[in-house]
């Protein structure tokens, strides 16, 4: 998409953009990376946090375990995920460093100059979504490095954050789960109303935060402790257990779980991230141990 835009501008005429600007514009993914030295890669230590990914929700599918149980999984594709900026401890909040990561390339035409500036500095095409990940000092990555789905491994647990589907202005029964009133037995025009709004004369007011009708959805929601069943390294797809907030083709933020009982100390996921030159080529599909792979013979439960 970004390549098309640059070619289009050059064809229209060199007077629209100067050749120097065209050469500087972040079109190629690999060729334009700065020729400075790569940053130092540290080892994993107790209590270090690594970066997450930005992915796109494809849809849901069923999977079966080796004991014959069926589970539903969501397929998330990591499309063009790059590290855009590194914010060291002093710049961010004084305690932890942060990394700004972006995912899913988008056209530069409808984005402001201010927005394009940081992508230009990183040497990366403009992204639809950028998020910050709080990261320990030994896990910082150089801006411009691509992040792949193999960053997560099967058997690991992740948290997925996304904007939930917007439902518009909704009543109190749908928004907060109130029970409403009976349908018959003399109810006059009152079937889905909130009813009472608080105690009587003593406070003589309605408390702040009272659950009332209003706009529902389109807020950031996090699903915690989702197991990764399968990782496809060819198309960069993660198969994540259960459902995930957001509609199809929405952009999500994935990071390692904060739940203490689902930590990934047993597996050794790549730290700070998965580099192709370090670990070499992985198999096209990485499966969890309990997952039934369709190339195996049918299950005989004994």
């Amino acid at each position, binding site marked *: 998409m970004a390549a098309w835009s640059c070619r289009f501008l050059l064809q229209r005429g060199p007077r629209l953009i100067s050749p120097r600007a065209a050469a500087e514009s972040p079109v190629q993914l690999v060729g334009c990376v700065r020729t400075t030295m790569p940053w130092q890669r540290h080892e994993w230590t107790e209590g270090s946090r690594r970066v997450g990914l930005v992915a*796109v929700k*494809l*849809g849901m*599918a*069923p999977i*079966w375990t080796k004991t*014959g149980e*069926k589970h539903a999984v969501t*397929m998330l*594709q990591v499309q063009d995920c790059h590290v855009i900026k590194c914010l060291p401890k002093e710049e961010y909040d004084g305690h932890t460093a942060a990394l700004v990561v972006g995912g899913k390339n988008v056209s530069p035409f409808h984005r402001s100059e201010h927005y394009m500036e940081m992508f230009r500095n990183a040497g990366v095409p403009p992204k639809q979504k950028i998020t910050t990940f709080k990261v320990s000092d030994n896990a910082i990555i150089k801006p411009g490095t691509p992040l792949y789905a193999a960053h997560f491994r099967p058997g690991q647990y992740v948290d997925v954050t996304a904007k939930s589907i917007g439902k518009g202005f909704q009543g109190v029964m749908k928004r907060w789960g109130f029970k409403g009133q009976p349908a018959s037995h003399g109810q006059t025009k009152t079937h889905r109303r909130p009813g009472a709004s608080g105690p009587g004369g003593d406070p003589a007011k309605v408390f702040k935060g009272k659950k009332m009708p209003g706009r529902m959805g389109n807020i950031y929601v996090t699903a915690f402790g989702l197991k990764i069943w399968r990782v*496809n390294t060819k*198309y960069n*797809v993660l198969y994540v257990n259960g459902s995930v907030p957001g509609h*199809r*083709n929405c952009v999500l933020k994935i990071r390692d779980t904060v739940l203490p009982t689902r930590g990934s100390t047993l597996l050794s996921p790549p730290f700070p991230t998965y580099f192709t030159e370090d670990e070499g080529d992985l198999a096209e599909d990485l499966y969890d141990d309990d997952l*039934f*792979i*369709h*190339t*195996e*013979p*049918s*299950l*005989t*439960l*004994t």
Partner: protein
Amino acid sequence: MAACSKRLDKFIVSLRLLRNLQLQNERFLSTSLCRWAPGNDSEPPKFIPPSKPVIIDKTQAVATLRKFLSPEFIPPRQRTNPLKFSMERKDMIRRRKILNVPEFYPGSILAVSMADPNATGKINRFVGICIQRGGKGLGATFVLRNIINQQGVEICYELYNPRIQKIEVLKLEKRLDDNLMYLRDALPEYSTVDPDMKPVPFPPTGEVPLNELKVKMRPKPWSKRWERPKFNIQGIHFDLCLVPKQMEHAQKWAQPWQEYDMLKEYDTSKLEQQILSEVQQEMSK
């Protein structure tokens, strides 16, 4: 006594000979029809050769001779990334290489063997008539119905469940509708299938036979108002259970404009051809 039985034997043997002679005569009659016809002495009778035997090539897989794409391969009309469907299709093809899923339609009689930890011999075999095929992708299902010990039983099987050991088609045929849920309100004889039924051989080429059976229903009320046009059922004998006035009353729920609604059109012919060629290519590898 012995003398009687000997004579009886000879009599039976002679009877048998006569029967054989009769049979031989019939065979001769079929091939040379004009032999005994009167007034045909001028010309010799025209030689009619016997019918050629049909050679069925059993070495080639039966499924490839008839172009059939299972309906769960066709993706629904959604705003989903086609990559998701292609990845699901790859998994479906991997499973189909292990388990042979034959071609079948709603109305065919199937036998499914599934691994069950609570069954004797660990394998559960169920024979029934397929009343519905639903779902797309890996979650495709089909419902089999049978009546066992005067109790109607319907089991919904998932096509890609790894516990399924074998799916056999005992009788391949189509019915007038895609959805035979009305068999729940029909007389029980239409849903009974013999559990020890022998597979009926069907030719690998040519059209799938269409059973134009019109089913007799139990008295109303039914589980659904099958006479209404939204179900569009051709396979019920409405003349026996409904009065013309009731049929007219049912037509009040007709929505004749839906046929002309262009936004509801979903032309899958090109998609089908593309997916069929892809699936056949992958299966032959």
